[in-house]
């Protein structure tokens, strides 16, 4: 029990730091919402190594922490929307066992962006924002694939560690 708490604490801190790193390196491609999603790396690893509950808790705490410190508190709603949809889809995809960790990460990235756009469109009451969906799906796929490859390696290594 204590070991799990320590593990969770460490993963939360790691996710928080990854978010901070992303915050320090702004990706300016001219359209909003394009990001690397480094923090998702921790979420996926937690999903595979620890479970759904732990991954959800981790995401929730990380989004809250990030929003309240260096992020934008009002912008947390978009992170929650994206994170929730992303986690939902990733959990389902993992259960289906159709994709590897990389594929699940791609889905996670795409649906995170989708969740954010939907929330943004709802807030400003303007569906035209969806104009940016193709570009964000593209960036979500690329980022998701990259993060996914990393996550696959990590999950494999950490699973081994867990069993020892």
């Amino acid at each position: 029990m204590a070991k799990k708490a320590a593990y969770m604490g460490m993963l939360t801190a790691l996710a928080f730091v990854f978010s901070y790193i992303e915050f320090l390196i702004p990706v300016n491609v001219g359209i909003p919402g394009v990001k690397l999603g480094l923090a998702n790396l921790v979420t996926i690893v937690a999903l595979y190594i620890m479970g759904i509950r732990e991954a959800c808790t981790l995401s929730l705490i990380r989004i809250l922490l990030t929003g309240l410190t260096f992020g934008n508190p009002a912008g947390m709603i978009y992170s929650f929307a994206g994170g929730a949809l992303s986690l939902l889809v990733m959990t389902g995809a993992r259960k289906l066992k159709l994709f590897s960790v990389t594929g699940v990460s791609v889905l996670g990235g795409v649906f995170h962006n989708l969740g954010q756009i939907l929330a943004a469109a709802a807030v400003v009451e303007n569906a035209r924002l969806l104009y940016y969906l193709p570009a964000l799906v593209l960036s979500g796929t690329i980022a998701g694939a990259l993060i996914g490859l990393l996550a696959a390696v990590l999950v494999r290594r950490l699973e081994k560690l867990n069993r020892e």
Partner: protein
Amino acid sequence: MKKNDVILIVVILALALASFGGIYLYSAGNTEDGEAVVYLDGVEQGRYPLSQELSLEIPAENGNYNLLEIKDGKADITEASCPDKICVNHRPVKHLGESLVCLPNRVVVEIENSGEAELDAATR
């Protein structure tokens, strides 16, 4: 990477490319009389033709603002009171359907055709 992953990525990319193509076709023929329409909280505040140069401060809530500039047939937000400045960093827009969004100020500047949406066709 399993085979399914590759299929997934290819399908997603194909869909995204198809959407890109669709959007481009839709907006490409329509930018002659484009207008920048300013929305605050989803409510239209004003329409400004892209053909006229303009510098306009859009007042949002609590003394916040976005500075809209129309130059060379493009609309751009060059200054804003929001903390993240995503709207300012956004490249200038001019195609139908493109928009500049400032979520903290709840301001949207969208490119539309002049006037209300017209009928595309009618049957008798």
